[in-house]
Every structure is written in C-alpha cells, then in structure tokens.
C-alpha cells in the first residue's frame, strides 16, 4: 500500500515538473519571438529617414503621406509604454503601406538605384515584421491555451504564469494587403 502511494506521488511530481517546464519553455519562446519583432521595428526606424530623404525630391505632392510616416516614427520611438508603442507602430505600418503604394505612381523612382534598394529593404522589413508578428501570436495562443487548460492551469496559477495579449493589427493595416511591389496594381 505504501509503495502504491509513493508511486502515485512520484508520477504526480514528474507530471508537475513536465508541465512547469513546458510553460517555461513556451514563455521563453514568446519572449524570443518578441525580440524578433523588436529587431525588425528597429530596422525600419533606421531605414525610414534614409528613404524619406531619397524620395522627398520626387514626391513634392505627397507631403501628407511623408509627414505622417515621420510623425508616426517619432511617436513609436518616444512611446512611454508598451500599449501606446504598439499603437504607434501600427500607425507606422499603415503609413508605410500607403507610402509604398503611392510610390508606385512615380515611375521616375524606378530609375533611382538608391530608392530601389531602400524600397526593397523596407518591403522585406515590413514583410518580416508581419511574419514575426504572426509567429508571435501563434506562440502566445499556445501559451495562453496551456495556461488555461487542466491540469497545467493549476501549475500556472501556482507559479505566476500570466496570459499574454495578442498583437492586434491596426484596422487600416488589415485593409492594406502585404506590401507587394511587383504586382503594383493592388489597391488598398
């Protein structure tokens, strides 16, 4: 009888350790995915001034679009907390989507090597950002499910694992499909 109890307790301990470790591993993966997003955000912050500088001369009539992007970038960099930062970055994504779309109306941009290079770099950064966000959300969903379902929910509450919020895309962002230069005809 004593042996049975010991075996049951041992099995419970093993299960608990396994559940705890899976939670930790998922949480680390979520953090890592967030770091990925951060890398792309930094990259686009660095790219924007160069791009604006390069296209400014050609795009006299798009002052609004350009200033919108510059302002959104400034907001994103100086955002005091996570929530307002996410919001500012979403605005920046929407603004950049518009800018890249409008750039299609300026055929003379196509012959400027610097612009082409920056445009390609910004496009891939935007795409990587959206894929990184997608991966982040997938992981967050898995972590949240793990935290909610039995029996890991017992361990989660015991050791202070909290559900993480999904990154929502800005409403405008959903209307703008993934930035695609080669098609060019797609309208937002």
């Amino acid at each position, binding site marked *: 009888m004593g042996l049975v109890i010991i075996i049951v307790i041992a099995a419970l301990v093993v299960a608990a350790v396994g559940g705890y470790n899976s939670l930790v591993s998922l949480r680390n993966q979520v953090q890592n995915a967030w770091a990925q997003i951060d890398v792309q955000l930094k990259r686009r912050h660095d790219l924007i001034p160069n791009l604006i500088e390069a296209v400014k001369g050609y795009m006299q009539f798009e002052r609004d679009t350009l200033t919108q992007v510059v302002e959104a970038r400034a907001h994103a960099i100086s955002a005091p907390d996570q929530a307002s930062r996410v919001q500012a970055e979403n605005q920046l994504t929407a603004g950049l989507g518009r800018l890249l779309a409008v750039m299609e109306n300026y055929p003379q941009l196509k012959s400027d090597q610097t612009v082409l290079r920056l445009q390609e770099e910004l496009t891939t950064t935007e*795409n990587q950002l959206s894929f990184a966000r997608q991966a982040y959300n997938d992981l967050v969903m898995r972590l949240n499910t793990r935290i909610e379902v039995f029996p890991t929910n017992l361990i989660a509450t015991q050791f202070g694992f909290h559900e993480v919020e999904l990154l929502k895309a800005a409403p405008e962002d959903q209307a703008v499909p993934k930035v*695609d230069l080669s098609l060019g005809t797609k309208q937002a």
Partner: protein
Amino acid sequence: MAAADFWALERTNRRETALLVGTFLALFTALGFGLDLLIGEVYFTDTGGLAGMPFLTGAALIVGIIQALASYYGGARLVLASVHARELTPDTQQHQTVLNVIQEMAVAAQMPVPRAYLIDDPAPNAFATGRDPAHSVICVTQGLVNTMDREELQGVIGHEMAHIRDYDIRTMMMIAVLVGGIAMLADFVYRWMWFGGPSARRRSNSEGGGSAGALIMVIVLLLAVLAPIFSQLLAMAVSREREYLADATSVEFTRNPRALLRALETIATVESPLRNASRGTAHLFIVNPLEGAREDKEGFLDNLLSTHPPLSRRIARLQALLAQTSTEGTASTQAASH
C-alpha cells in the same frame, strides 16, 4: 496541432533515413560477401559451415560506412554540384529580393536562414537540401526568379522551408546520394561495358587475366541488374504525400494559398525540363524537372513510378484549401475578386 504533426514527421524521416542507410550497408556487405565467395576467399566446408577470411566483405562494409558518412556530411555539396548550382549573391536587385524572401520565410517558419543557391536555367524550379535546418540550402533556378512575383516566390520558398523543417531534406538527400549514386554508377558501368569498355578490348588481345575479367563481368552484370531496381526503389521511397504536406505547410507560413496556387499554375504552363537534373536528383525539386514527367495521371502504376504527384492534383488541393479559408476568414473579399 501543427507542432505535434511536425514532430511526427520528423520522427518518420529519422526512421526512414536510418532504414535507408541500413539497407544500403546491408546491400554493400552482401555484395562484398558475394565477391568473397566468388573468388574463393570464403568457401563452404564439407560440414556446411563457412571458412576463410571474408576480407572483401569487411572492405565493402567499411567503404559503405565511409560513403554513408560522406553522404551525410557532404551530400548537399554533391547535389549542388551535380545540378551545377552556384551560391546566390545579391549581385542584382532581383537576386537581393530572393535572398530577402528567404529571410522572410525563415522568420515565418521560426528557423535559421538557409543558404541560397542559384541554377542558371530558364526552367522555373526549386529545391532544398541539407542534413538539418542549421545546415540547409535552398536552391532556385533563374527561370523561377524571372517568372515569379514576390508573393509567388514566398509560396515556393515556403514550400522548401516546410521540407527543411520536417527533415524531408535529410531523407531526400540521402536517397539522392546513396541510391541515386548507385543507379548512376550502374548506368555508367553499363554504358562503359557496351561501348568500348576494357572487356571488349581484352577479348581481342589478351589471353591472361581470365578470372579478373570474369570478376569484372560479374560486377557489371550485377550493377546492370541492380540499376533499374534502384531507380524503382528511389521512386517508391519518395512519398508523394510529402509534396501535398509541404504545400499545406507553405500556406501555414504565408497565410496566402492564392500565391502558391498562382505559382504552381504558372509552373504548370511551362513545359521545359531542367538541363542538369537527373533521375538521382529529380525527387528533390518542387516540380518534376525531367522531360515528359508532367502527365496528369495518378493510377497505381504512376504512384509506383513517379516521384511527384500531378501538378493538377496539387492545384486542386490548394483550391480546396482556399475555398475553405475564404468562407471563414478575412480573405474572402479578395478571393471573390480574383
């Protein structure tokens, strides 16, 4: 859900690779043993036992092990050399885009970025190879780069990324190098024998070397018999299910079934075989690179003999997937307009 599937796939691939290497070593050893018997190094005693020094058997086993190891570590380089691929550098805007798209899909798949290679061939095609995700290569043709737009390229690269993630690349590479290698060797020896090989010459001018000549003849005949069997095995070992799965996983990465669909449709309209693809490497590619291999049949025999499912079937499955997502997802408005 997806994660569990992926572990199962990886396990299956590990098992298949082990089975393949085991079979290969067994065959090699059997060949060595047969030769030992033939030249009398090993012989049956009166009591029915075996006697002698089976040193050709040992040699064959050692050679087999060396070849298996070389295939595992150098297989990717061999495959790339056999299709005449070169490292892809950002020398043009177009090639820079390909490199960027590979990076994008690596982010989507949460995997290390594979190295990129290019084949200078107008036939649109692509493949991935390597022993694991950290040592993987994606190879595209110039034709693919020329015909695909960015989204379509994402679909194709996503398909290759799926093969890498599921360890299909390892199994496929070992098949290409071990099985394909034997088939190629056999083809070569076979041709060599019938078109001015040493046996033809020897017959006319020599009296000595009788046993050596016979030995060569036996090896040649053995290889000639083995070659078609190996090609067959190769086709059978390649599960056509893998291609459907990689298509589905690609869509999981890009969330864009329409782009991969367009890519496959575009490729389907181009009937141009890849110059440097062979029977040994055909199964690696996203679509069959061999001449006249694009027939739309899927009967029992085609299943046995073909390395790829018909493109029309793959397109149909993607269309089904698209119909599924557009009834529930946000992509519905876009799908309708197409």
